[in-house]
């Protein structure tokens, strides 16, 4: 039998005004297990707490019930008090007789009666409480950033700046991501490369950062503080440490007709290549699908010209295993495929392009050297039509579009229109829009400049059809303001394609047991209060993998994710919430039901040997809860048929005892 002390707080008149506190304290003296019961003006005050401590010593209490305000207010306070008195801090229960009793009931007898019942329920619960100790786990002071775009770069730099080592895993041969492909950035129109490439160099030169380019994460095990990650380093057939990035191999390579993915296939590269001049790491990569030597064993030119002897045709994929304390997902986005939008004739005409393709066409390092020429005949386009929301906000066509707003298109379209009008004033630029969405600092001003200073024709309406005809693109669209159908002969049509999460995100989410929404964007732990954390502890989100966003937003989220990582890595040990699920192995069926409902992937299974009463042994599959990962929701406890799974601090029999006390 426990020795329980009950402490009834007056809270001035807040409680005592409607509840006869003396009567409550008196009534509790007769409850089983209660050896001491008293009341006091302010239990949470220094004097009140001293009183509890003294009572614990004097009456050798091993359980405390405080009848006071909401546990959300002072549960932590009284737990500390209990700990100071030498008790386990989880041997405290609060009966909420203020918010849920004295403040909502007016009559003293009614309030008193209910307060007594609530106190009895708390006593019933505390008599079944067991001491709990938060689990401890060490923290590996190293972070992994998956994705080397601007989000990953910024996160890595910020974490490294705080002194923690960071690894970046990037699937492409270079970091830089989508931002490296952009020409200028809104709303300031500074060139993307000018602001991005210095950061890429910083990453390369930072001693705390390792870059695994041309690599993928293939497996993740473990949990917050200790993730064991397998990284596949794809064979690039060039020794990264030896290669100087001189480019001699590239010049000599006879395979010159490989579509250049950096320029979105609008020009060609060699089979051995460096994606772009400022690539980091600046080393060559051999494309095994096109290299003659790798395909047929005949060539070997690059190896002959390489002064550093870096070419290695026998290279194999390598697998690295590393341990990290935290993982940041920064897998980014891609524009969706335009192939299925027949009405815009993207597949039929070379002169119907996406906005990202336009970025390359306007970039000085792009296929046209920065002169805007249309892809079909390399002539100057004189009439250009931009179509907004292609595949965005598209509910009816789930197989080709996305239901959400891609957020960045309004601004980059304004940017493109403005840049074209600035460079080629003889060009007519039309923008068909549904809404122009410009919430952001200096965003609306930017869009207005496109209209007012640069004379871009904004048309409220949508393009219904684009028909290529004799080298002209016949654009048919509606002008809703003028209530008129427009027919424009355009030379170039630019589609603002919706963006979607990178395809690698879905399998990665499965590996990380991080949740995703129906659009494959990672879900945040709380949409408002924990926007850069995944619900899976130790996994953080940076950039567009969490939802469409522009560069400034991406960078701020990247910084926020970094600060969360730093906050985690600063700790030597992680203290868990001790109110976690626990499986009784003797009763577990190993049926995997609990595993299915766990939102955190905290439950795993192992085959365990049991010694039976008849001295034989039996191997059974049993559930094991990872206490560092479990957040204590209790979903598993109800899913478990046998009752093997229980939640510490909210055990089945504790809640049952409360029910009984209330219903008695």
């Amino acid at each position, binding site marked *: 039998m426990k020795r329980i002390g009950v402490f009834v707080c007056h809270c001035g008149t807040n409680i005592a005004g409607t509840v006869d506190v003396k009567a409550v304290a008196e009534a509790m003296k007769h409850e089983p297990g209660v050896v001491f019961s008293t009341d006091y003006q302010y239990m949470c005050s220094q004097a009140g707490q001293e009183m509890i401590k003294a009572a614990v010593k004097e009456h050798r209490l091993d359980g405390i019930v405080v009848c006071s305000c909401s546990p959300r207010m002072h549960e932590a306070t009284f737990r500390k008090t209990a700990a100071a008195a030498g008790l386990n801090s989880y041997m405290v229960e609060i009966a909420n007789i203020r918010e849920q009793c004295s403040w909502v009931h007016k009559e003293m007898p009614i309030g008193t009666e209910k307060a007594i019942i609530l106190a009895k329920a708390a006593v019933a619960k505390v008599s079944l409480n067991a001491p709990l100790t938060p689990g401890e786990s060490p923290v590996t002071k190293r972070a992994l950033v998956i994705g080397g775009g601007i989000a990953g770069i910024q996160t890595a730099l910020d974490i490294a700046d705080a002194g923690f080592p960071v690894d970046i895993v990037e699937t492409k041969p270079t970091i830089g991501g989508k931002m490296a492909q952009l020409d200028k950035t809104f709303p300031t129109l500074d060139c993307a490369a000018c602001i991005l490439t210095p950061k890429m160099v910083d990453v390369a030169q930072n001693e705390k950062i390792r870059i695994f380019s041309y690599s993928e994460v293939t497996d993740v095990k473990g949990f917050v503080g200790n993730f064991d990650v397998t990284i596949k380093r794809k064979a690039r057939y060039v020794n990264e440490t030896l290669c100087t990035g001189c480019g001699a191999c590239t010049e000599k390579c006879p395979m010159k007709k490989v579509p250049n993915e950096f320029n979105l296939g609008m020009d060609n590269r060699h089979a051995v290549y460096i994606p772009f001049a400022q690539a980091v790491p600046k080393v060559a990569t051999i494309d095994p699908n096109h290299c003659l030597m790798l395909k047929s064993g005949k060539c070997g030119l690059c190896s002959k010209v390489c002064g550093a002897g870096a070419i290695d045709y026998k290279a194999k994929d390598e697998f690295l295993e590393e341990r990290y304390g935290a993982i940041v997902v920064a897998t980014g986005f891609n524009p969706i495929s335009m192939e299925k939008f027949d009405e815009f004739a993207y597949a039929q005409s070379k002169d119907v392009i996406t906005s990202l393709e336009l970025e390359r066409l306007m970039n000085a390092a792009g296929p046209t050297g920065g002169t805007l020429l249309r892809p079909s005949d390399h002539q100057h386009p004189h009439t250009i039509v931009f179509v907004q929301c292609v595949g965005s906000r598209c509910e009816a066509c789930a197989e080709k579009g996305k239901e959400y707003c891609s957020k960045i298109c309004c601004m980059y379209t304004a940017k493109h229109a403005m840049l074209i009008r600035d460079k080629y004033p003889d060009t007519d630029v039309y923008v068909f829009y549904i809404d122009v969405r410009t919430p952001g600092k200096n965003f609306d001003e930017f869009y207005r400049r496109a209209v007012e200073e640069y004379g871009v024709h904004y048309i409220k309406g949508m393009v219904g059809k684009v028909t290529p005809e004799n080298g002209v693109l016949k654009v048919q669209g509606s002008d809703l303001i003028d209530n008129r159908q427009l027919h424009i002969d355009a030379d170039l049509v630019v589609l603002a394609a919706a963006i979607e999460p990178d395809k690698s995100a879905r399998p990665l989410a499965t590996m990380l047991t991080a949740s995703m929404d129906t659009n494959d964007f990672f879900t945040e732990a709380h949409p408002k209060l924990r926007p850069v954390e995944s619900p899976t502890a130790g996994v953080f989100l940076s950039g567009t993998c969490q939802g469409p966003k522009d560069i400034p937003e991406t960078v701020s989220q990247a910084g926020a994710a970094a600060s969360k990582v730093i906050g985690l890595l600063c700790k030597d040990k992680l203290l868990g919430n001790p109110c976690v699920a626990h499986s*009784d192995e*003797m*009763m*577990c*069926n*190993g*049926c*995997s*039901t609990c595993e*299915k*409902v766990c939102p955190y992937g905290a439950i795993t*299974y192992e085959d365990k040997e049991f010694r039976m009463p008849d001295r034989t042994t*039996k191997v*059974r*599959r049993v559930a094991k809860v990872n206490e560092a990962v479990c957040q204590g929701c209790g979903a598993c406890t109800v*899913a478990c*048929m*046998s*009752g*093997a799974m*229980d939640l510490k601090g909210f*055990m*089945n*029999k504790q*809640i*049952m*005892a409360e029910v009984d006390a209330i219903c008695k």
Partner: protein
Amino acid sequence: MQEVTRDALLNKALELLKNGTVDRVLGYRVGEFSYDVTPAVFENEDALKKDFCWNSFCGANFSKYLISETAKTEKKLLVFLKPCDSYSFNQLLTEHRFDREKVYAVGVPCGGMLSGKDLREKVESVSDVSVNGDKVTVKTLFDGDLEFDFETLLSDRCKNCKSKKHVAYDELLGEDGEVLDSHRFDEVERLEQMTPDERFAFWQGELSRCIRCNACRDVCPACTCEKCVFDNPNSGVQNKAAADSFEEKMFHIIRAFHVAGRCTDCGECSRVCPQHIPLHLLNRKFIKDINSFYGDYQAGAEVGSRAPIVNYTTDDPEPSEAVERGHGNA
């Protein structure tokens, strides 16, 4: 009438024993009377030849036995599966309850099973039963030979058979059947149409007969817990026998809830109930509700499927509207 004969099963068992595919056989064993059949494990040829039995009283679902039998030894076990057994077989595999490698499953078509228990209640002093085509001849001690239509003696669950198709086997004897368009929810619907008072009266009448013998739990292939909550002192609901009018209700609701989404509707619970409580109507209510709220789901139809009760979508019906829909108002 069973399409495949005892000899066919026996020969298959002997063949598999002989060629070393299996080491033991889980089959039916004759009792004192031909309608008195019990599951048994046969360890050798002689035992098989002597006691192995297959007739229209072999209703027991074998799947549950696989848990304890495969845990006992490394030897490989032959099991004969009727179509409804094969669903339980898959469901138990989904829940990792036995090692598939240790089992060789032979599917057997089922022509519907008779119930010895029902028969004895219909006819007194039965001494023997034989089935010929769609006729059943019942020999009695005092009333001579009686003849019945097979259909009329068919056990209730077989009248509403959901599937003649095997969903799991290594080998199949005879022809496989189809998933049937059964009327198994008719009785549930009839209850739903009643007023709450009538329903309460119905269930009070049924459940108050419960003697808490636990036969339903012990036979149920979904009730395979290492320790049942009702035996677990930490569950808060431990009780050996129903002490009051509520507890049998509590027991049956919780039992039905625990098997919801896992119950394959094999009907064993009602078959074994000595008090003739239509327990399957509780399980079928859950199955019907799951189908109507969350889309059709058949437990055991495939291995590894995720039961609707451990799944969700963001636009599931609210409990309040679900109750309305549970009335068949949807």
